[in-house]
């Protein structure tokens, strides 16, 4: 059906899996640092303009964030269920669970889009586009600059993660992986967990604090 999953330059499948996992973890570390720059900027401006940031945080609707958190956490769970099936060698069920997760991801993005359109109507926009009349404190536009940067970058990651889940899910459903070798399923799951994990930080930072 398909060529052996072992690439020519590895001696055995264990070494290859080890290399792939290590590579993914390093990549995730560098992803975390990508967000860290934004979080650091957020921390600095929150310190400089604590009142404006608190006001702005209250001005956005918490329930959007809450529902999205629930959606993402659930999707992480379904990804884990899919991986669990992959370990047992049930490719079809893995594909099914991943499809469910992709559906959650789409729901997340849809809700985010609705939320964005609210901000557009209210004029809660970054920098020079800011025109939210109810909050005119200095620094408020910075909150929304960072809000769009952080959630936007996270949104890009959701799209990427969703695509990875879809591709790996289809491959799994076609029986490409076995109980002995399913590292790509694992790595897709890891990536999705990172996307979820970052949101777990974003949610309290932006909606709750």
């Amino acid at each position, binding site marked *: 059906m398909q060529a052996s999953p072992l690439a020519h330059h590895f001696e055995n499948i264990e070494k290859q899996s080890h*290399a792939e996992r290590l590579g993914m973890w390093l*990549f995730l570390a560098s992803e975390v*640092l*990508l967000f860290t720059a934004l979080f650091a900027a957020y921390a600095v401006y929150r310190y400089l303009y604590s009142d404006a940031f608190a006001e702005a945080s209250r001005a956005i609707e918490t329930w959007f964030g809450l529902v999205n958190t629930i959606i993402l956490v659930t999707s992480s769970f379904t990804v884990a269920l899919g991986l669990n099936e992959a370990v047992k060698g049930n490719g079809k069920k893995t594909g099914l669970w991943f499809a469910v997760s992709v559906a959650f991801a789409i729901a997340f993005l849809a809700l985010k889009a609705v939320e964005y359109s609210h901000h557009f109507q209210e004029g809660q926009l970054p920098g020079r586009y800011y025109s939210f009349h109810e909050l005119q404190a200095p620094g408020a*536009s*910075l909150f929304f600059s960072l809000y769009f940067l952080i959630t936007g970058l996270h949104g890009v990651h959701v799209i990427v993660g969703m695509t990875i889940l879809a591709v790996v899910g289809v491959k799994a459903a076609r029986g490409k992986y076995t109980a002995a070798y399913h590292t790509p399923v694992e790595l897709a799951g890891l990536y999705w967990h990172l996307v979820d994990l970052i949101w777990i930080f974003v949610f309290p930072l932006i909606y709750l604090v």
Partner: protein
Amino acid sequence: MSPSHASDVPVYNPRNYLNSPATGLKSWLLTQDHKRIGVMFLVAASVFFAVGGLFAMLIRIELLTPGPTIMDAMTYNRLFTLHGVVMIFLFMIPAIPSGFGNFLVPLMLGAKDVAFPKLNLLSFYLYMLGAVVALYGMIHGGADTGWTFYTPYSTTTVTKVVPILLGAFILGFSSILTGLNFIVTTHTMRAPGIGWNRVPLFVWSIYATSIIQILATPVLGMTLLLVAVENAFGWGIFDPARGGDPVLFQHFFWFYSHPAVYIMVLPAMAVISEVVCAFSRKNIFGYKAVAYSSLGIAFVGFFTWGHHLFVSGQSAFDAGVFGVLSMFVGIFTAIKVFNWTATLYQGSIAFKTPFAYFVGFLFFLVFGGMTGVAVATVSLDVHWHDTYFVVAHFHFIMVGATVMAFLAALHYWFPKITGRMYPEGWGLVGAVMVILGFNFTFIPQFLLGNEGMPRRYFSYPERFWALNVASTAGASVLAMGLVIVLVYLLISLKWGPIAGPNPWHSRGYEWDTASPPLPENFEETPVYTRGPHEYDEDSYANPPPVAPEPKHAS
């Protein structure tokens, strides 16, 4: 061990990575062979080195006389920005790690390839894409911000900073992927017998570099993206008019860009550790100290960024802390310098071209490092800040060390990469001109800076004239030296004498295969029972003849 030491008669290896599996352009552009990718990186980086060097020469000609010489102020601003961007992002950061690292790391570990060959090729294309995007910005208007893109100026300038920022952002991805590949390769693909205490020092240094690449580059990527967003759409992150903080940019920028200095210098140290062993025919003195000090530099490098902000309104306490932390780098560097010097002791030194560059390297590293400790001292830095003293300092340490190591590597591994030798006599002539030219270029700049000539200005008072002429004269010698090197290396590609598998009789693992190496690196996976730098007692007491005499076939 492979039988490469058996014969002293050099034979060209007929089946090698250069001609198999195919020789066409497509077989190169779509290759996943780390050796071919390394060569492509080397060629591209060398071209950019020439471009950046040309800009440098134009800058020096402009500064030959006070007032306008060959260009107006705006052109000058663009030129020094492009010089910095090209040299740093397109040459110094990728040249040794992505070029020589790609070629050598798997060979030195007895592996068939890097862990992720496709990712490796992607990294090369990201590099080219980043270069094209940045060059687009340069051709259509350029930027006048300096390579540091300091805000708030970079967010308001009308020159084309956005494509250059995006280009640098894409180059960052290339850097991250290469670093990731090397770390995974070093962890998982070492041949039997290569424990952590037998990993060649070159690989150790590249490994430390990779850690910095993975951890620091994303922060720079984000920062450059923020500046681009701000310049294009006015989002206000660093704009004081909208409540933003321009100094925050400096913190972010130097959080990457100071460690990036070690992305340039650590690979240079990687090369030097190999060269010093091969040309003194001795095992390295203090293997572990040299290996771990690389990690030390990588670690401490993350806590030094604040020394760029001594005059940006930082508190005196912060400045003191960053000053002291910066000096720690000097300690780790000194560990290496002393160990290299101790390696020479009672060695059987072959004063070949790579060794000449080693000597130059040592001078530039120590002199540049000492002035580095000086500028890490707050009170002194306040005097020298933004003067030519700083320009001279970072050229000595970054450019001096990196270019010396790059040229040493080019000569030392030339036979491995091409299977041919370069002419030794011309090699030494080139080395002497490059090293002397470099000194004559930048020593006057130390003096200029100390007398108060500010950097980045295209004109200056007449009292700085003489030293500027000296500097430009030195730059001409340097340029001529580099042209000589380029010419004889290009000639040697086709007409150089056949080198044989190991012309230096080096003990480095990478020499245990044919030159040029087989497409799959080794006939069979090698098994090692010795360290990578272990020369026998009698191998340096009675050294074998090093390198065949160069003869040009007509």
